[in-house]
């Protein structure tokens, strides 16, 4: 029983970083109804800038953290202006395709900065394990979990206690009705995009500092994990992102313990496949999708 609990706990901790990645993804998808494939590569740009400062000038960890988040936001805003700001009929597909093109651009820019496959990344902790009764906890994982809880709580307050949050929720529900209420949809979307990239930047920094290295796979990895976790939870659902991330983490760690590391990703894709067959909208998605479609009525006004 103890090993099972230990594995589940590890899964929750790993999953909290997936949850953060998915949170950024879901925020963008919820607000824009469009998929940002450049989400991971934006995080990579920030992380690589931080790494550059770290290995060239021995920048302290907090500077690396700030640069990683700020760089991710900058790259995110760049992607938004290029691929997502233009609205209009057919913009959804165009955004997705162009965000794929920008993916390549951002990844290549990062690789020009630091061409080797992997580099060291500063750790937040000394690496000593904490014991909680019979269980063992990695402190850097604990930080991940704490960050996920804190960011989720902060995002909840932002969404439900501020005027900006009210506008954001209105856009998520119906962007045309939001604009008719006087909400500046474009500027709110840009801010949401920057916020999502910042959350992604935090997630990227925490994962890298737990791994103590950064590799050229980061962009792909972050897009993939965030996307899968969001799909499990439900497209564009904020609670779904967190739950999807945790579910993904727990499945991955359990299957790795049971069947070995080769099976880890396979199990995650398998679960996603089964879930999408049984419940295409994801855990939180189905009800939301059909309901918003029913209430939207004038669906033809959602893409303009």
């Amino acid at each position, binding site marked *: 029983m103890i090993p099972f609990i230990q594995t589940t706990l590890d899964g929750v901790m790993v999953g909290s970083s997936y949850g953060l990645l998915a949170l950024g993804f879901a925020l963008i998808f919820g607000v824009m109804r469009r998929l940002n494939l450049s989400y991971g590569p934006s995080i990579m740009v920030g992380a690589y800038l931080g790494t550059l400062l770290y290995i060239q000038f021995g920048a302290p960890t907090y500077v690396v953290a700030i640069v990683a988040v700020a760089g991710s936001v900058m790259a995110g805003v760049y992607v938004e202006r290029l691929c997502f700001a233009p609205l209009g009929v057919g913009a959804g597909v165009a955004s997705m395709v162009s965000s794929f093109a920008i993916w390549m651009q951002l990844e290549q820019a990062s690789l020009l900065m630091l061409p080797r496959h992997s580099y060291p990344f500063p750790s937040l902790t000394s690496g000593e394990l904490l014991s909680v009764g019979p269980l063992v906890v990695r402190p850097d994982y604990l930080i991940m979990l704490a960050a996920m809880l804190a960011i989720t709580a902060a995002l909840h307050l932002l969404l439900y206690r501020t005027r900006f949050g*009210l506008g954001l929720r*209105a856009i998520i529900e119906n962007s045309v009705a939001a*604009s*008719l209420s006087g909400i500046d949809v474009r500027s709110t979307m840009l801010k949401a995009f920057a916020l999502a990239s910042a959350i992604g930047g935090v997630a990227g920094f925490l994962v890298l500092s737990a791994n103590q290295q950064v590799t050229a796979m980061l962009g792909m990895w972050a897009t993939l994990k965030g996307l899968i976790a969001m799909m499990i939870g439900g497209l564009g659902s904020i609670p779904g992102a967190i739950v999807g991330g945790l579910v993904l983490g727990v499945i991955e760690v359990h299957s790795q313990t049971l069947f070995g590391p080769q099976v880890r990703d396979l199990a995650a894709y398998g679960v996603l496949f089964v879930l999408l067959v049984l419940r295409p909208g994801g855990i939180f998605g189905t009800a939301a999708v059909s309901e918003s479609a029913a209430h*939207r009525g004038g669906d033809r006004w959602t893409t303009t």
Partner: protein
Amino acid sequence: MEAMLEIVDVVTAYGKIEALKGVSLSANRGRITCLLGPNGAGKTTLMMTVAGVLKPRQGSIKLEGNELVGLSPARIVGNGVALVPENRLVFPQMSVRENLLAGAYQRNSSGEVAADIEQMYTRFPPLKERREQLAGTLSGGEQQMLAVARALMSRPRVLLMDEPSLGLAPIVVKEIFGIIAELNREGVTIFLVEQNAHLALQVAHHFYLMEQGRVTFSGTPGELAEDEVIKRAYLGTRRSAG
């Protein structure tokens, strides 16, 4: 009579298909102007163009002489034009109160906004009862009231309404039209799209008829009721008093 909202030669197209082929009309200050027309005539397209959601290919839309074409929907709301859209489009997952707050998004004085919300509750008592309920759980009539109240929260000088009677029970429709007349008595200029000409005749001061993207009739309620073609198409063949 002074024109509050003046639409001149507006062309709006979806791709190559022109939905509005040069529409000119105006809504006078303090009056109810009604736009009639069959499905697909371009009435909703016109409303969405005035509100800034759709960009016209040519033409001008002026509010008290100020050009609205080219402004974002949010700026147009800020200029004093609010649209109650077709199908209401309330925010279903937000409470009634939050829907009203969203309508006042650009206003900064929270005290005034709170006072206006109380005023909406007085005007629309069902909204007060359900103020913490999610808007998606309201009945059609209540959602229509909410959509009107949400638009009024921006304190518009011109209220655009796109088929407020759509899908509502006759008794509820009567209530909604009572509200429209009342708002107008309080000085709000109203520009209304309606399919139900009988109802519109009871409140509106001026009528336009739109067919296939063009204005084909403009006149007073009396002239509308006299027009043989309109009588047959929109007022039915019954010999009831018009």
